[in-house]
């Protein structure tokens, strides 16, 4: 089923953040807590799905030379819609925490890249599937980063304190984590370590495949020796 295949594609194989390395700005600045990261990813998913759908509907009418500005206009209109929606329905604290990053979804590389690569060339259903898959993958990536950052920095998850009394930025905690690690440079370090972790896993998988391939094939030395032995005797 083309729909499911395209959906699964965006989850792991072409994950927007870890494989395609897109949308870095929002992923570091908005992932200070899982709630913020999740709502940011939700807003971005909304924009990706809607702009993919719209662009795949009008793809035959866009002249080739001006297609990037056209995509940007479509994406900008959906970002305006999502900003109004979030100001109206999302909790006030989250909107304040996300700040200017909701308007910055316009220049987030993910909607533009998916529009250029996929939505401009495929029909409506597949483009929606692609948008949902990429958005789901982006959500998973953002939640992962923010879970690590929130847990190490504040000892909580989704603002439910788990080990906050023990380790948090609060001055009464047992282990007072410095805010500078939880908020600033810690973000870069978390993302770098995650990239390294995924690369290590890929390297290990490739090495296992190479070893399995080597074990399954017949070694080259066996062939000529066996052929040479009867000839000499």
């Amino acid at each position, binding site marked *: 089923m083309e729909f499911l295949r395209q959906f699964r594609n965006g989850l792991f194989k072409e994950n927007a953040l870890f494989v395609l390395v897109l949308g870095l700005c929002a992923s570091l600045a908005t992932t200070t807590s899982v709630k913020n990261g999740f709502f940011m990813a939700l807003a971005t998913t909304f924009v990706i799905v809607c702009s993919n759908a719209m662009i795949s509907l009008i793809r035959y009418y866009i002249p080739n030379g001006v297609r990037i500005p056209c995509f940007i206009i479509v994406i*900008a*209109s959906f970002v305006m819609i999502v900003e109004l929606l979030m100001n109206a329905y999302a909790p006030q604290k989250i909107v304040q925490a996300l700040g200017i990053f909701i308007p910055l979804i316009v220049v987030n590389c993910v909607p533009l890249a998916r529009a250029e690569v996929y939505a401009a060339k495929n029909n409506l259903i597949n483009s929606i599937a692609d948008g949902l898959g990429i958005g789901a993958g982006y959500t998973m990536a953002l939640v992962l980063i923010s879970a690590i950052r929130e847990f190490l920095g504040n000892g909580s998850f989704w603002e439910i304190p788990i080990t906050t009394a023990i380790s948090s930025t609060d001055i009464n905690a047992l282990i007072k984590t410095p805010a500078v690690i939880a908020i600033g*440079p810690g973000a870069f370090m978390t993302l770098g*370590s995650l990239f390294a972790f995924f*690369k290590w896993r890929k390297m290990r998988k490739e090495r296992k495949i190479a070893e399995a391939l080597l074990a399954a094939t017949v070694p080259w030395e066996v062939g000529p020796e066996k052929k040479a032995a009867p000839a000499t005797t």
Partner: protein
Amino acid sequence: MEFLSLIIGLVFVNNYVLARFIGLCPFIGVSKKTHPAVSMGMAVTFVLTMDSFVTFPLYTYFIQPGPQNVFYSLTGTLGMPAAQEFIRANGLGEVLTIGTFILIIAALVQLVEMVIRKTSKPLYDTLGIYLPLITTNCIVLAVPLNNIAQVKAGGDWFTKSFPEGLLWATVSGFVAGMGFLLVMLLMSGVRERLAVVKVPKPFQGVPIVFISASLMALAFFGFAGMMGGLKANFG
């Protein structure tokens, strides 16, 4: 004096790349060698200065609530008092800043590219392909939005009166670009060194750049005390 605190603030304390995490895509992608990194930084500075200069009056005269809004006088002459009152209280809607700014930025980058190509070929060759690439860069939308936010907050860098605010907005755009250039220069130097050093295999490529960036961000955190110190010593 406020100029100095603006420069220190935007280049060191609240650096757009290291402290606000904006403009990361070129930071990771273009900073391998010094020459493209500096070219990108200069191109971004150029676009940001013009961009802040153009978007600030656009916001003040078309979108910001109040009697200076163009639509205020327009609805006045057309004889629609209810609409005029609406414009005075709410402006044209804050949400329209996104669309108008991005259109202006795209058009501006196109215009700047054409002008540079005609007037100064060496400069065009230096900036190369980075000029069109800047349109989808986070930083060219973030800096005008930040200028607008400064105006609305009424902070001590910006005043609400138009000519002075325009000067501050333009200088702020230029200084933000300079901060970006500085960080690109530093990172390209670090990456050129990293290329000849033994890096563990999983960290080669993008991850080690992030780790270096985190150390750089940590170093820049040390500047945070400068703002208070400037205020205390120079008033």
